[in-house]
């Protein structure tokens, strides 16, 4: 519960994704593997016309989404091969962050969303009544309501595969190991080493995203190495779990309720008229 923001998950048993976008080649094998393994329904055959990205965003029916960003900037010491033009292509496979303080989990009124033994956040489809509260609660725009079933859906980090000792389908299929699965504390160490390496190669704008347990969501179970600001990839620069402010919200609502009670009682105070 986000009311207790000092709460830490048992990091020793927590698994996660480290998505190193510097080596993503935009093949979308993760999107396909996820769809196939999890029987995620069709999310529309759309042509955006803006890039190779026709998947557009994460939703109930898209649990991995590869973003494509084209920029006239140099990428480290790399030779772009287009004459004098500086050019770099950013590709990044986005996924549910499995937050330490997960707003979707906090606000779910049925208990359908729960924290698994692996530290991940999963929807129980047979409990969800489709109230949709988790959708606007998510600061990353991940979870959605599925039209066909009327219930909420998102990445489970392949809960069934984890139970069988297998890694999630996206990580398993990623041909460059841009998506790495493992114990979260080990992944964080690996990411720090990789960040130093990428910066040494000249990519000064490289940074980790979601790795910090002191950020607004208590750190994420799925974190990233990005080559530009988070919003360039469609990620919020400083996400905060909405329930962090809920104690203040309850206090304000309580004061307003008492004021309403007192005010309406006062209107009837005078007997006549």
């Amino acid at each position, binding site marked *: *519960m986000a*009311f207790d923001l000092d709460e830490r998950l048992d990091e020793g048993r927590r698994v996660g994704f480290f998505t190193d976008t510097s080596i993503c080649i935009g093949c979308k094998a993760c999107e396909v593997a996820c769809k196939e393994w999890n029987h995620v329904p069709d999310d529309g055959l759309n042509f955006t016309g*803006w*890039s190779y990205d026709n998947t557009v965003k994460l*939703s109930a029916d898209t649990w991995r989404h590869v*973003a494509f*960003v*084209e*920029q006239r900037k140099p990428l480290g010491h790399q030779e772009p091969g287009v004459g004098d033009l500086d050019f770099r292509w950013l590709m990044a496979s986005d996924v549910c962050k499995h937050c330490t303080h997960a*707003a979707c989990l*906090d*606000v779910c*009124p*049925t*208990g*359908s969303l729960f924290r698994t033994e692996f530290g991940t956040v999963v929807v129980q489809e047979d*409990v969800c*009544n*489709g*109230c*949709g*509260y988790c*959708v*606007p609660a998510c600061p990353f*725009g*991940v979870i959605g309501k*599925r039209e066909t*079933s*009327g*219930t*909420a859906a998102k990445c489970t980090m392949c809960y069934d595969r984890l139970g069988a000792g297998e890694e999630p389908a996206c990580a398993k299929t990623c041909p460059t190991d841009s998506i790495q699965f493992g114990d979260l504390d080990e992944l964080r160490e690996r990411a720090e080493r990789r960040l130093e390496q990428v910066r040494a190669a000249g990519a000064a704008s490289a940074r980790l995203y979601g790795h910090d347990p002191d950020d607004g969501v208590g750190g994420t179970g799925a974190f990233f190495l990005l080559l530009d600001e988070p*919003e*360039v990839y*469609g990620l*919020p*620069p400083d996400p905060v779990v*909405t*329930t962090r*402010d*809920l104690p*203040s*919200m*309850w206090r*304000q*609502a*309580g004061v*307003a*309720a008492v004021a*309403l*009670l007192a*005010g*309406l*009682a006062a*209107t*009837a*105070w*005078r*007997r*006549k*008229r």
Partner: protein
Amino acid sequence: MVPKADFDSYYGRPVLNEPTWRAADIAGYLFLGGLAGASSTLAAAAELTGRPRLARAAKVGALGALGGSLYALIHDLGRPERFVNMLRVFKVTSPMSVGTWILTAYGPHAGAAAATGVTGLFPGLGRAATVGAGVVGPAVATYTAALICDTAVPVWHEAYREMPFLFAGSAAASAGGLGLLAAPLSEAGPARRAALAGAAVEVAAAARMERRLGPLAEPLKRSGLLRLGEALSLAGALAGATVGRRSRVAAMAAGAALLAGSACTRFGIFQAGMESANDPKHTVQPQRRRLARARAERDLT
């Protein structure tokens, strides 16, 4: 080459997923829930001060609004037949869970109050139910502010300090409006005063909200529904307090304006939130400002 991308966002796409809530259901519920809750309190106050006809009108109005609320809430579910799953748990971190239990406590009281008020049967039970509904009513009317503020929707979340007061004011104004519409002039005093105070609080809370939110207030300031709501509420309240004291027809018109004003305000708040969720600028820019502020504070110390 593809058109130049806007690097403040990913091709101008929203960061958040749009709420799946339908305006007719959820904005409608914000209005009906407020009307029901405040009407029950007004009914209790009227009954305890010897205004039986105002009390009866408010009780029947509260039950009707509650019925509409329950219909809207269940209709908005993706799996309406599973609405009872809300009763599996009680979670203080989920305003929807807390609200479910508030409604569970409130509903039977409001129902019994209306049934005994209309039939005149079991007056003792009716009095107890009327007082019970009147005490729980304000919670029904204000928890909905926490409900929408406890999201990542920028305008709703950031407005959490004023939202409960705006909702309380709007609820009082609508209950006053119902009283003006349905109660005789001789008993409508509390309704007139509730409308006046409610409309004043509603307008003051909205003004304060828009000032404090700064650039994020843009969807609120642009909202024609919010302006119309304020105008109808103020006009209804003032008309009710002046010509509405003498003329039954004027009182009814003022009451109708107050009800319409409250509904416009709720739909306006709902709409402004949806707009802010759909514009990446409203998600990214306040977060950027927060990061810059934190960095500046770190540099100072």
